[in-house]
């Protein structure tokens, strides 16, 4: 395996050499979406230039080629997340779609009046609202694991909440706002002890390490490809076969059926049962290129590099007067949220953008978490393996300059 060298890696991502507002782009919004290596861009281009055809339908050559490539991508994801079977890997539109499929299909089938669903205070709205909706419908109760001041889940409270009434625990693997890495394996183990199932939102995790779904023993694991250097518009819902087999499909349409008459329709088998309609084929196929690319990298060294970026940026940010970091969990990914006393996040975001820096400002779709910390929003710098210490320096200089203008 090649030694990790950030300057070489950056050459794989054409967008990283562009300028924004006359300054070299410093892209620190990886939590929102990651950039794409040339191989992924080429895969999309090549599909439309050479292989475009609908999949799972035609006997003609192109349809076969496209179907094979699409199913090949599914297998690559299967191996990457260590799923036992390829049919446990369902293609979706993204993380949100994955949560909604399970909250609807699994929730409507299994949740009864008085049952309980547990989520956490640090969930993204996309892992709150679907559960609120299905709990309302099924008259089930939604419970929330609180977060401590450091931005960690209060495990004692979680343990107290668990009972035979708990049917589902849905939680985020890495918080998009705080960077907290949750002890998912332990949470799953505890949930299983009371017979509950667990859905893990892996949207942020997949940019930092491959989730090992079998080691975690996750029942459902959802993520989008666009945060893991792949295309937008495609995501993955991993589910244990025995669970997916039991629940009825969520959407009806083509591809998900075996036979249709006006009296009765029989459903196709996994994974097609949950993949109604023509999917995002080009993105699905380009997924294979994304997985190939990331598996070619040295992840031990990337982990060290990302932790160095996190530690360096944290230390440098703390030198700024009035700056407070929101989320100081012991286990943390390279995501840093912060606020500056007397300065609004929006204003800082606008000014640093003028200096070519992309950061996210606002509530990050985690309003309950913002309420927990008594703030309106934060500025978030989220780092990927292609970011550098020099970029941290540019960010710090820009922040100092912006604060001087604003205060």
């Amino acid at each position, binding site marked *: 395996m090649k030694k990790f060298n950030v300057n070489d890696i950056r050459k794989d991502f054409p967008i990283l050499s562009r300028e924004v507002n006359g300054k070299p782009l410093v892209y620190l919004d990886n939590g929102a979406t990651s950039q794409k290596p040339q191989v992924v861009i080429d895969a999309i281009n090549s599909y439309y230039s050479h292989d475009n055809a609908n999949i799972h339908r035609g006997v003609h050559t192109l349809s076969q080629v496209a179907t094979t490539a699409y199913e090949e991508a599914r297998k690559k994801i299967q191996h990457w997340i260590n799923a036992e079977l390829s049919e446990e890997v369902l293609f979706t539109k993204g993380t949100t779609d994955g949560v909604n499929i399970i909250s609807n299909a699994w929730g409507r089938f299994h949740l009864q009046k008085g049952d309980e669903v547990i989520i956490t205070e640090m969930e993204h709205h996309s892992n709150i609202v679907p559960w609120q909706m299905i709990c309302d419908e099924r008259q089930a109760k939604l419970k929330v694991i609180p977060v401590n001041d450091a931005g960690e889940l209060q495990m004692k409270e979680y343990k107290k909440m668990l009972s035979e009434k708990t049917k589902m625990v849905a939680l985020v693997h890495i918080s998009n706002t705080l960077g907290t890495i949750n002890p998912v394996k332990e949470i799953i183990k505890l949930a299983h002890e009371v017979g509950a199932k667990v859905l893990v939102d892996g949207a942020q995790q997949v940019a930092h390490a491959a989730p090992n779904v079998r080691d975690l023993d996750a029942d459902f694991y959802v993520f989008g490809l666009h945060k893991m250097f792949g295309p937008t518009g495609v995501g993955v819902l991993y589910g244990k076969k025995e669970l997916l087999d039991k629940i009825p499909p969520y959407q009806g349409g083509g591809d998900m059926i075996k036979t249709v008459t006006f009296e009765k329709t029989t459903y196709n088998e996994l994974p097609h049962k949950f993949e109604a309609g023509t999917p995002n084929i080009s993105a699905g196929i380009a997924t294979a290129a994304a997985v190939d690319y990331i598996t070619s990298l040295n992840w031990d060294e990337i982990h060290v590099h990302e932790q160095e970026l996190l530690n360096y940026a944290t230390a440098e940010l703390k030198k700024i007067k009035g700056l407070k970091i929101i989320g100081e969990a012991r286990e943390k990914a390279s995501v840093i949220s912060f606020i500056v006393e007397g300065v*609004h996040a*929006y*204003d800082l975001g*606008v*000014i640093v953008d*003028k200096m070519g820096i992309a950061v996210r400002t606002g509530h990050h779709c985690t309003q309950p978490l913002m309420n927990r910390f008594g703030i309106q929003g934060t500025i978030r710098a989220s780092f990927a393996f292609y970011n550098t210490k020099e970029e941290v320096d540019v960010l710090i200089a820009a922040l100092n300059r912006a604060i001087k*203008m*604003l205060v």
Partner: protein
Amino acid sequence: MTINERQDEVIEEFEMFEDWMDKYEYLISLGKELPLTEEAKKIEENIIKGCQSRVWLAADMNDSKIQFTADSDAIITKGIISLMIRVLTDSSPKEIMESELYFIDKVGLKEHLSPTRSNGLVSMVKQMKMYAIAYSSKV
């Protein structure tokens, strides 16, 4: 002065700025100067929620002309609000309803009125016109 005359005046002022720094420093100073809305008016009813920043807007009518007061928790948003108020306030409901705000584009601040910014400014302009419609029935 008509609304358009005021817009032209703002455009002329902005032509003096050489780069974005000058422009934003001016906006920030406007934001700092904008009289704060009294807390009594910063009520839920008057809030225009954006994803990024919050804006409060209130309107009164004196001598058939509308007076706006507004505030925001973000200073750049406030600077832009200050320009909008300068252009629109003290005009008749009819003038406000028929006005077309071209100055934002001309002074290079169009990005702040893009819906993706979601800073409450787009909704604020809509709300200003709504006030004009509401007051026009009282004239």
